[in-house]
Structures are given as structure tokens and as C-alpha cells.
């Protein structure tokens, strides 16, 4: 799955709503309720996407997944805390045979539920069960308009299947919500991707520029497009938005490496997002386990309310009292809250430093170097490390060191 797909547009929406306060609508930007619950129900996945944000050592967590009962309890507890948007994600959630039960419970509890899927494993029987059970929408990942790139970047032959699944989703009266992760291999096809989405009748499409965590960090030099390509992609997207007359809502998630200010990661640590991982860890963001000296609670033995409100891990980076210079006295600190803790630690080795994306960061040269590396033909020619069990086992065993050594934790 893609990190960018999970919630950034929620943030966009709340920002829009803030602008409309005169009409009585107000956003909940400093909310400290977990409005979003992301259930990463499994790390198993039939696809092997080079840009996957899942931890590279995910293979450790494929044998100790939560049971159906444990998921249902987590859903109930999170709902009590105020969670309302539920993302059922992975890995590929459809590899579990109890998604139907989870969907029924989600409906009963009043969640707005979303299945985030590659489409592999979606059958007529299952989608009908989801519809009957009250699943609200399905977000399908698409990769390119060409079979070649789709199959290359996912390391699977799934192009035809995706088209079939898209038709199935539409056929069952679901809104068509597409997520396309953008990288070097498909960024040149932006117009065609948008036309494909329109032709499929998509109501929403998220063009999620790759952010570098997990497998995508290992493959950063192989995936990163150039600044010029990103600018051109954005221009094409804007042009499509204005000219097409399409009803499709398009979200273009800007890649932070080419900004001079970091993203307000997860809309703030422990502000609105809560993730429960396949093995039950409760996290404020997808990658939080890379951080040092942190003990994340687990639903198997810890009350979810305590985890959210009181656990040291969730309180560690709430607000701004943890900040150092240059963030502490920065006039813009409220805009981005210092950026992403995980990215900062992975790249700098100091979790409390400013996100190196920021041009005010003393570590900003690391981002500039990464951009240069991605344009270095020798480095960029290294093979992609696809996300699969074999590579995960290798990384756990300390192989592939040359690809992970520059980072301060295993991505």
C-alpha cells in the first residue's frame, strides 16, 4: 500500500472546511481523537511493489496476525474513542477470509469503511458480501496505463485483473476511488492515467507521489523522478482538472523531497490517525516502529484508550515541546510541526531534529544528495529490491546491507 493514500486527502478536506468557517463549517485540525483508524490486517501480499511503504522486515509479522475477534474488539474500542473513518488495508487485506466479518462489525458500529486493495482476490461473491455487509467504498490501486509498467513495478502480472476489478467495483454501485503511486516509471503517463481513470468512471483519483519509507526508501534512487517531471505532472493534472469538465476529484500529493518545507506528517503525531498493525501494534503513523527507544502498545495486552491518550509513545511527539532548533523558534512550526519523525530519524539519526526536507534543517544536504544520487546513472542502475518474502527474509538476516546501511534504522 501507499502511505500517501492514507489520509492526506482527509487533511486536505479539513483544510478546505476551515476556509469556510463563515458558513458554519469548522475543521477539527487540533482534534485529539483518532478520527481515522487504519487496520493493517495483514502484511501478506500477492503484489511485490517496489514502492511499498510497509516495513522491509514485515516477514516477522506474517505469523502472528490478530484474530477476527481481536480485530472486532479493536474496532469497538477505537469507535468509543471517536474513530469514524476505517481503512482496511495491508498488505492485501483480501488474503484474510474474515474481511466480511470485519465489514459487518464496522457497519454496525457506524464507521465509514474503506477497503484498500490491489484487487487481487476480489470476486463477485466477496464484493456482494461486502455490499450486503455495508462496506462504504473500495479504493483500488492502479499502476499505469501500460501492461508493461504495471507488471514491472508490481513484479506481477496483474494488469488485466485490475481492469476487471475496476468494472466489478463500478458494477456494484461503489464509488470508483483510484490510487496511483507516481514514480519515475509512470510519471510520464500522467495525462493517459487521468484519461484512463475518467474512462473507468472514477469519482476520485489520488496521484500519490512516492514518499520514501520502507521498500520505497530502499529503492529511492531507482524510483525518484526529476523535479522537472514532477512539475510537468502537476501542470498536466491542473490542466486536466480545468479542461476536462470531468466530475472526477483529483488529489495530487506533492512529493516532499522537492519542497523546501516538510509535510505536516499525519496531520500531527497522535492528532487524528491511529494505526493497528497486523500483529496488533498501535502506532501513530505507518513507520513509527523505526524510531529508537520507543515502546508501542499492542491491542493484545493494552487498552486502546490508554494507548491513544496516555501511552508515552503517543505523547512523545504531540504538540511542539519536544522540538529543538531550528524548529523550536521557527515562525512556521505550526504549519508542519517539524515534519516527519520517522523520515528525520531514518535519514539523520536524530528523531527530534528538523525534517531534512526543510531548507532550514542543518541536514538538508541529505535530501539534496538523495536527489543527486537518483540522477547518478551508476546508483540508479542498481536493481530494484522488490517487496517480497524472500527479500524481507534477506534484509532481516542482514543481507542487502549496501542498500540499507546509509539509514539509521531498517526502513
Amino acid at each position, binding site marked *: 500500500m501507499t502511505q500517501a493514500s492514507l489520509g492526506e486527502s482527509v487533511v486536505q478536506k479539513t483544510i478546505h472546511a476551515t476556509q469556510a468557517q463563515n458558513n458554519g463549517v469548522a*475543521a477539527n485540525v487540533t482534534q485529539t*481523537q483518532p478520527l481515522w483508524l487504519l487496520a493493517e490486517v495483514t502484511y501478506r501480499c500477492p503484489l511485490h511493489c517496489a514502492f511499498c511503504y510497509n516495513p522491509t522486515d514485515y516477514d516477522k509479522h506474517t505469523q502472528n496476525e490478530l484474530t477476527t475477534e481481536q480485530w472486532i474488539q479493536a474496532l469497538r474500542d477505537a469507535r468509543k474513542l471517536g474513530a*469514524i473513518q476505517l481503512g482496511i488495508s495491508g498488505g492485501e487485506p483480501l488474503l484474510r477470509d474474515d474481511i466480511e466479518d470485519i465489514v459487518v462489525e464496522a457497519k454496525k458500529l457506524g464507521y465509514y469503511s474503506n477497503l484498500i486493495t490491489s484487487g487481487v482476490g476480489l470476486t463477485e461473491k466477496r464484493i456482494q458480501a461486502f455490499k450486503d455487509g455495508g462496506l*462504504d467504498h473500495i479504493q483500488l490501486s492502479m499502476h499505469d496505463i501500460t501492461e508493461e509498467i504495471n507488471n514491472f513495478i508490481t513484479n506481477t502480472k496483474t494488469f488485466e485483473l485490475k481492469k476487471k476489478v475496476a468494472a466489478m467495483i463500478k458494477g456494484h454501485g461503489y*464509488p470508483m*476511488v483510484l490510487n496511483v503511486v507516481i514514480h519515475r516509471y509512470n510519471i510520464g503517463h500522467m495525462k493517459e492515467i487521468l484519461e484512463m481513470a475518467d474512462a473507468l468512471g472514477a469519482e476520485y483519483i489520488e496521484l500519490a507521489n512516492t514518499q520514501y519509507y520502507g521498500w520505497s526508501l530502499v529503492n529511492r534512487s531507482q524510483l525518484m523522478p526529476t523535479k522537472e517531471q514532477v512539475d510537468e505532472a502537476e501542470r498536466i493534472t491542473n490542466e486536466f482538472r480545468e479542461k476536462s469538465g470531468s466530475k472526477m476529484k483529483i488529489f495530487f500529493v506533492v512529493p516532499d523531497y522537492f519542497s523546501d518545507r516538510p509535510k505536516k506528517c499525519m496531520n500531527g503525531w497522535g492528532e487524528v490517525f491511529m494505526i493497528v498493525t497486523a500483529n496488533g501494534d498501535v502506532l501513530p503513523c505507518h513507520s513509527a516502529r523505526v524510531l529508537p527507544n520507543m515502546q508501542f502498545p499492542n491491542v493484545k495486552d493494552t487498552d486502546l484508550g490508554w494507548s491513544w491518550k496516555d501511552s508515552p509513545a503517543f505523547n512523545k511527539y504531540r504538540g511542539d515541546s519536544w522540538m529543538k532548533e531550528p524548529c523550536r523558534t521557527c515562525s512556521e512550526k505550526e504549519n508542519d510541526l517539524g515534519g516527519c519523525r520517522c523520515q528525520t530519524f531514518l535519514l539523520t539519526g536524530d528523531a527530534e531534529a528538523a525534517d531534512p526536507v526543510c531548507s532550514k534543517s542543518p541536514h538538508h544536504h541529505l535530501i539534496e544528495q538523495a536527489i543527486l544520487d537518483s540522477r547518478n546513472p551508476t546508483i540508479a542502475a542498481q536493481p530494484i529490491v522488490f517487496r517480497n518474502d524472500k527479500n524481507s527474509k534477506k534484509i532481516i538476516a542482514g543481507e542487502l546491507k549496501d542498500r540499507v546501511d546509509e539509514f539509521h534504522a531498517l526502513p
Partner: protein
Amino acid sequence: MMDNQIQNEDIYTLAPHHRFQWEEAQSSYVILFPEGMVKLHGGAGEVIKRLDGKATVSDVVADLKVTFPDAENIEKDIIGMYELALSKAWIRKV
């Protein structure tokens, strides 16, 4: 161009794939839709609540005037909410 003109006799309802509900944990109404939600403060929620696919804009205004007799200039706010909701595609004309 007429699309965003709210007329008295128009009837609106929630757009497809949108859900409107009361959220106890936040003490407010919300609209939920793919990839997002908006929290509606008092008056805004009261307007959306009345969009049942049967009530005209005039009906909604009249009903809210009865419910909130002390609110000043309420009609302007109500139309403003219709315009916002329509521009955001949270609602559609029946």
C-alpha cells in the same frame, strides 16, 4: 452556470456515497465520504439534516426560522450553506 444558483423551489439531498450522521464523540454532525469527512458546526448540520429529498429550500428556511426564532439573518446563512455544500459536491439537486 445556473448550477450554483440556489432557488427557493429547489430540492436537495445528500450526494451519492455521502453519509450524514451525528457523532457523539465530537458532539456534532459530520458528512462522511470516500477519503474524507467534514465536521459541521451547529447551524450547518441543521441545514443538512433537513435535506431529505423532499423539502424545498423554502421549506428548509421556514422550518429553521421556526426552530431558531432568535437567529438573525438566518436565511442568508442557510443559502450560504447550500452554496458551500453544492460547491463541495456534498449535496445534489433532486
